[in-house]
């Protein structure tokens, strides 16, 4: 409960800036409550005063007033709902933006352990749940409560004896309803887990459809699925029964109470304690009194939903952001990089992916990393670009420990060209320049020309203004590579970390990529995770990696002579990948 309050408090922080609408909503409550009270009161009056006295003008006046009351009540209800929803929606929108910004500050390792779908749900479906549940739950719970209390007060004022009859019936109905609801919930939960099980089995079967068919296991899986589906059906059957009984009971209990009210009312009329109008007023109000009982559990469930969504969101907010190191020493250009006995594991419990890695790279040199998938090549690049921290040993850039350098200043001198190119759904020019200071259209075109990307860009009708769609779906894989090359070049970084793509590209673009890499090799200091023979042979130093260790090192010539693991790897690399 305490936790719930804290969660709500958090949410109220977002509501604060939009509280004016909450005040409006609160202001509407007295009017709508008054209307709820005036309707039965006027009914009593019309029957007892106007009809009893056969007063036609009085009847018209009362009728007119009643209409006014209904219209005002309607307007106030609508206004109340809208105002609260408005402030809620604004608060949710603010919270969403803040959460999104927060997510962008999370470290890479967070996303290694948390599927992106979950993070997405926090920002979409959980936010939606809050919006809906608050609207349906909190809003009506509050006003329903006020209105019911007020109605009771009115009824008690009209006749407290008759009110007692309702008071006796009410708890009875409440217990009956909550008993049925409890049973219903049991079967509901049963059917929900049965459904989840059937669905996940279906998903698995679809994912493994090839295997199912190759093993001729179609009938076997169908039988298993039918079993799971049947469990769902049985649970549903039970919950249908309780659901039907629950619904009918609530409806029926109103009529039973009605009979009770007339019976007691008759006694009171006989005793001259109440008028016929009061009895009719009571009969007309019964329905309204039962509403909270009918909806209460549902409203509470709605609020629970909102709270659990809020809790999810809060958890994401509490994920620690990546530490941005204090503005460490400024880097002026690249001079040298030294790895000394570096080890690294992605998490404390996992096996190390790098062990005792040592090498030294001077300005202008080219280093190639070769090895099988999973040998740790890309991890070295990720450490240098500070995508991951927490290594053992020393990594020194220009003689300074990498840990002490801020990411910002590091990235000015080091650029990572990743294998999976990320493109924004913006123009090509934007994707190359990325709005960095000092990079205008001229610099963008120069960078594109440097990596031979200008040729294909000029062939696109919109040229540099060509808009990228869906992370580059309207470009070929090779073209996307070239754009990312140009992006790196435009930044004038001196050390380039190149993660060569393994995917096949068409031969024309493949040539351009080769040319671009050659040119980068001529002008920059490069560390490359290399898959192309041409890249490897042009390197000053080749590190052959296996299971996190450097097992061979040297130039292409010396390694070929040795004839070890390197040679075997080459054989694999030369071939085009991707089995059809």
């Amino acid at each position, binding site marked *: 409960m305490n936790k719930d309050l804290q969660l709500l408090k958090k949410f109220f922080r977002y509501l604060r800036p939009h509280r004016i609408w909450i005040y409006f909503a609160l202001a509407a409550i007295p009017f709508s409550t008054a209307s709820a009270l005036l309707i039965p009161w006027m*009914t009593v009056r*019309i029957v007892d005063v106007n*009809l009893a006295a056969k007063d*036609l003008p009085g*009847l018209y006046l009362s*009728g007119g007033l009643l*209409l006014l009351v*209904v219209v005002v009540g309607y307007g106030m209800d*609508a*206004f109340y*709902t*809208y105002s609260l*929803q408005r402030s809620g929606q604004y608060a949710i*929108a603010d919270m969403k*933006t803040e959460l*999104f910004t927060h997510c962008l500050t*999370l470290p890479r390792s967070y*996303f290694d352990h948390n599927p*992106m779908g979950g*993070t997405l749900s926090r*920002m*979409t479906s959980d936010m939606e749940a809050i919006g809906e549940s608050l609207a349906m739950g909190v809003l009506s719970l509050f006003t329903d409560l006020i209105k019911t209390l007020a109605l009771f007060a009115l009824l008690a004022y009209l006749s407290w004896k008759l009110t007692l009859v309702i008071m006796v019936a009410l708890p009875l109905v409440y217990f009956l309803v909550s008993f049925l609801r409890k049973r219903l919930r049991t079967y509901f939960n049963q059917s929900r887990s049965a459904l989840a099980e059937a669905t996940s089995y*279906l998903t698995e079967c*679809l994912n493994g459809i*090839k295997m199912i*068919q*190759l*093993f001729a296991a*179609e009938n*076997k899986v*169908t039988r298993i*699925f*039918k079993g799971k589906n049947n469990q*769902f059906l049985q649970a549903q*059957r039970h919950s249908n029964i309780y659901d039907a*009984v629950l*619904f*009918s009971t609530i*409806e029926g209990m109103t*009529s*039973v109470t*009605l*009979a009770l009210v*007339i019976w007691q009312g*008759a006694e009171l*009329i006989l005793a001259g304690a109440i008028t*016929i109008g009061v009895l*009719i007023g009571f009969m007309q109000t019964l329905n309204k009194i039962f509403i909270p009982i009918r909806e209460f559990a549902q409203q509470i469930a709605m609020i629970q939903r909102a709270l659990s969504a809020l809790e999810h969101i809060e958890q994401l907010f509490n994920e620690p952001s990546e530490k941005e190191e204090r503005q460490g020493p400024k880097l002026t250009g690249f001079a040298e990089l030294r790895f000394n006995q570096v080890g690294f594991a992605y998490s404390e419990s996992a096996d190390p992916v790098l062990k005792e890695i040592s090498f030294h790279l001077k300005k202008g040199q080219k280093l190639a990393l070769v090895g099988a998938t999973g040998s740790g090549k890309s991890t070295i690049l990720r450490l240098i670009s500070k995508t991951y921290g927490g290594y053992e040993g020393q990594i020194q850039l220009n003689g300074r420990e990498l840990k002490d350098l801020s990411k910002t200043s590091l*990235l000015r001198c080091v650029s*990572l060209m990743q294998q999976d190119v*990320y493109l*924004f*759904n913006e123009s090509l020019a934007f994707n190359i320049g*990325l*709005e960095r200071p000092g990079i205008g259209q001229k610099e963008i075109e120069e960078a594109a020309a440097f990596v031979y990307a200008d040729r294909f860009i000029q062939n696109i009708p919109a040229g540099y203004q060509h808009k990228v769609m869906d992370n580059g779906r309207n470009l070929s894989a090779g073209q996307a590579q070239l754009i990312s090359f140009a992006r790196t070049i435009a930044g004038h970084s001196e050390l380039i970390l190149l993660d060569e793509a393994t995917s096949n590209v068409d031969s024309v673009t493949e040539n351009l990529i080769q040319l671009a890499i050659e040119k980068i090799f001529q002008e920059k200091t490069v560390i490359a995770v290399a898959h192309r023979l041409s890249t490897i042979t042009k390197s000053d130093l080749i590190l052959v990696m296996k299971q996190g260790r450097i097992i061979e090192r040297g130039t292409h010539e010396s390694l070929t002579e040795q004839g*070890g693991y390197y040679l*075997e790897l080459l054989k694999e690399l030369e*071939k*085009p990948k991707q*089995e059809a």
Partner: protein
Amino acid sequence: MKRARFFLRYLGQHRLSYSLGILFIIATNWLTVTIPLHIQAGVDLLTLGTEELKAHQTELYGHLWQIFWLALVIIVVRSLSRILFFNPGRAIEFEVKNELFTKLVHLQKNYYDHNTTGSVISRVQNDITGLRLLCGFVLMQFFNILTALSFTPYKMWTISPSLTLYAVIPIALVFLAVRMGMKVVVQYSEGRQGLLQSISSYIVASLTGMDVIKGYHLTRWTTDRFEETNQAFLQASLKISFVRSFLIPILNNLENILKVMILTLGGWTVIQGEMTIGGLTAFMAYGALLTLPLTGLGWISTLYQQAMVGVESIETILKQETPHLARPALTQPPAELFAQGLRVKNLSYTYPNSQEPVLKGVSFYLRPGESLGVLGQIGSGKTTLVNCLNHYLEVQPGQVFLSGHDISQIPLEALRKTIKTVTQDVFLFSDSLQNNIAFGVEQLTPKALERVIYESALEEEIERFPAGVETLVGEKGIMLSGGQKQRISLARALVEPAPLLILDNVLSAVDYATERFLLEQILQRRACQSLLIVSHRVQALERCDQILVLHEGQIVDQGTHSELLTRPGFYQQTWQLQQGKENE
């Protein structure tokens, strides 16, 4: 019309339940409309004055008892009517789901090439909800509304025809307003849904590119863009909130509006002496009875349309053709299907969306009892060849034969009991290790399980697993290495003997010692008569009776290990390269 037939087939199966349901609904509504008559009589007695009332007290209590009993009977009858409609709705959902599943497991590769798992699941999951609602809730509401809206006005008419006619005016107006409002809401909702989707894809895109965004200081820029979409979404949400806030209370107030009208106009007739106060009260009670079915009327049509869209989408699956199920059964037992071996004649294969053939004129003959190795570089067409032989890919007739039967004519089940394939990509169910191994068979004795665990070199690992063979693997289970998965999938194939076992690059992720052990086990051929091994490692193939060298979809060389070693070529080269590694 066609879609209606789809329903009628299912509805017909539950006609008894539905017919009873309809009877109970009629009863419910008839009993419900009789209650206000007793109220009317009761109130009229109460207005007679104290003296008269005392005289009629027993009559009054009679009416009250009637109301009381009616209420109790209605509870029972209404419950029954709902159960009788909802249960067949669920049963139909169950039946259609089973039908869908049966269809889905028999659909072939070309269907799954065009339909993602996500979209199929959404159909089975969400679109069926519409169908269920239609066969349960919507159908019940339809009859409920139909009877309620005929009984109630009829009763009202008997009290006062003119007042009944007047009541039509506010009802019609409210109804029109709500329909129009709903249309606007639906329209806005679609726009809002679109925006929600673009927010989602923007979030996914941004999280994917987080390194780039951070590395190039684009956080601000990215957030600004997000804020733009978020604001548009907010505005769309507010518009909907606005319309809904003013629309929904209209319906809730219909009862009040009727009350105003009945009290004023009805009051006039009471003063004129044309109606009693009891009649007035009963009339108000009827007014309240009208609002619920009227509200329902608004959304059963929406639900109906939704359900129809769902049915259409479900039908796209159910209407898929599975011609392979119609292939004539074989006259001989499946065991004899491999009696004369596998013959491949000039096999070529081109993928549907490509021009370049991946296999070009491949021919070979695999005799029963023989083992055949296929060596080739990555991309040489090895896996495609395997998928043609087990008919995972549609092969044109006249190219692959099993003992003289064209495999494109053999029923799939028989074919796959004859040819068992262990694929490169391993799929494990979220289930125990044991059940994963027993996947292809109905029963697995503990002894057989022990044997395959030994043969696939899993013994040691299973001892280390927390629950032995009961350990959960797959998505929800423990993490397995690539090599472990490969061995489990191998074990799966070794469980039941098959005339031909194909191993497609299965041992790529195990170390050399284990590979040697596994090959030994496989080559003993307890689980098969003939063997086809595909690999890019010579070691895996050297003991085969015959080896094919595949290059760019063609057989460029073929012979035994020793024959191939004597002549220069890809086989010899690979052998030399891999010798060094093996002795490492």
